[in-house]
């Protein structure tokens, strides 16, 4: 059987790389925990945007960590093109499922009263529609 030293598909990653990777991962983990305690919503004065920033930071760090693990621990950096393709294909393909969000993001673009989102003017009240008796209500009394 082929000795691994002469086998180009088989690369022994130096131990120092593993150690560095581990420290990088630990650092990133500390960073992500620290970042989660920073309320960007308060800093920039917009809670919705702040939440987005927090999320982006957390996910970016998570992706970085995943890349480190894949590249060095799993050794994809040193493997064949084919392995590289398979390694990333899954993650890319998973994003296709994100098309689902297209549905949820655009659903409310179909506002019930008017077709176009910028329609601030309402369609005629139901009461103005023919064939449709208005409820008999008296409006002289206030609420309690």
């Amino acid at each position, binding site marked *: 059987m082929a000795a691994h030293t002469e086998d180009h598909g088989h690369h022994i990653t130096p131990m120092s790389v593993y150690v560095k990777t581990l420290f990088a991962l630990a650092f990133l983990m500390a960073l992500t925990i620290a970042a989660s305690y920073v309320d960007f919503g308060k800093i920039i004065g917009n809670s919705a945007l702040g939440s987005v920033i927090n999320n982006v930071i957390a996910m970016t760090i998570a992706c970085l960590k995943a890349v480190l693990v894949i590249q060095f621990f799993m050794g994809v950096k040193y493997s064949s093109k*084919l392995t590289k393709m398979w390694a990333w294909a*899954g993650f890319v*393909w998973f994003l*296709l*499922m994100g*098309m*689902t969000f*297209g*549905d*949820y*993001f*655009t*659903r409310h*673009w*179909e506002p019930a009263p008017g077709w176009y989102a910028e329609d601030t003017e309402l369609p005629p009240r139901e009461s103005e529609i023919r064939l449709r008796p208005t409820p008999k209500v008296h409006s002289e009394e206030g609420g309690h």
Partner: protein
Amino acid sequence: MSSIPVAPQINTDPPQPTRNYLNTEHTIKSWLLTGDHKRIAVLYLISISIFFFLGSLAAGFIRLELTSPRGVLLESETYNKMFSAHGIIMIFFFLIPAIPAVLGNFLIPIMIGARDLAFPRLNLLSWYLYLIGGVLFLIALMMGGVDAGWTFYTPLSSIYSTGQITIALVGLFITGFSSIATGINFIATIHKMRAPGMTWDRLPLFVWAHYATSIVIILGTPVVAITLLLVVFERVFKIGVFSPELGGDPVLFQHMFWFYSHPAVYIMILPGMGVISELFAAFSQKRVFGYHFVAFSSLAIAALGFIVWGHHMFVSSQSMYQGIVFSFLSFLVAIPSAVKVFNWAATLYKGHIKLKAPMFFALSFIGLFLIGGLTGLYFAAVATDVHLTGTYFVVAHFHYVMVGGAITAFLGGIHYWWPKMFGKMYPESWAKLSALLVFVGFNVTFLPQFVLGFLGMPRRYHYYYFQGGDMQFYNILSTAGSTVLAIGFLLPAFYLTWSLKYGKDAGPNPWGAVGLEWQKVGSPPTTYNFEEMPVVTWEAYDYQAVREGTLELNSTAHHHESYIGQPEKEEKV
């Protein structure tokens, strides 16, 4: 073949000389623990045939029930269980494994010049998982059945249905892994185990189709597995991911389900297309026209298949903008499909066409698949979808693709490779009769359903008294057609079994076809397929070279009528 004495076998080294994979060992254990891809293919063939029979039986009940607008035969509950069983069995236990697990398993290693699939034990495991899943589903049937349809839409399946959905879904979950195992095996095999000279450019289109199919399997099946598992969790632990009571969205289930189940259509039809490419080449004695286009159209279909799932949901309260996007993408699938059909037609042009039974199946595939594919346009177009989806129109459409496409291709492939698998010829005229019956019976069954659907008959109804007078005739016509179709399907079961004992010996290459499975191995092949590694120096389907005499076929049986078996080589111990 039984006349040739087989040396007594002991299941240890050193191996005794073997003649072929079938008679190398006879014990049941040797079959149940085999790693041989060919034996596993045979195991699969037997099991999917059983499931196909069960599924057809359910279909028969459905068709009988529908002869009357008020359903005289079955209770509503029973009817629902019947069509659910039909759908689930046919899709998960027959169509998805049919061509890949039988023909693909048997042929891919031989076609690319490998001794076996990359992971024989995984292959065997795949069959056992399939069996466990199937048995679990049958247990669910016996314990009361499943009434949610094969689509398992929530919240009917997760909360309201009283059927044995949990067991059935666990069964499907397990079966999903059988499919994944096959997919992984094919991908690793096709990538890494091709014989010297067998470049991607020279792969038979059957292998290309299976490569595309495997990609769909490994990317899609896990998603449906987890989706069905969530439904199980919802039933058992009330976790509520899809239940509106907890703020879950039942439509999310549809997204996740169709993310797999639309590509699953391509899992069923792509291998069929691969079979048809082989048949057209072999029986036209000509290279498939536009080899590269046909090969890449398989990949295109596989890739596009993943981004069109929303066309099952145009009226499901999905956002209309998303609907339009999905509609647009769905139209794109028409192109690679059209490319395939046109290329097959062009393959015949100036060929030397042998009108054998497999070719009959291939020709009827073209007709039926055309209708099936083109009626897909009604469902890619949102405007017509809002009228036709959920009616018999959609039933007719997917039966044209699934039965007219996939099953016709499967039957064609089984006939074509039967001599290779078992070394025996099937009876030609019976096979032609079967092909004819399937074609006619199929059309009589499903053409009326297009009309029914346009009239508005909802699918999964067994009462149609609201419009009974309008619909009964078409339903009776359809049932009559299904009887013919059933005979067409039953015939091969008999004569193929008969041929195992009484068929003529086939010889290694009865069709005079190009391809490693015909040129380099006997019929049936030996356990490890190749005596020596073949080195491929010719293009796929290089019939031109055969005619010019530069490529020699294994068999002298160019005159296919003679079926002269190639004399076995001397067996050396």
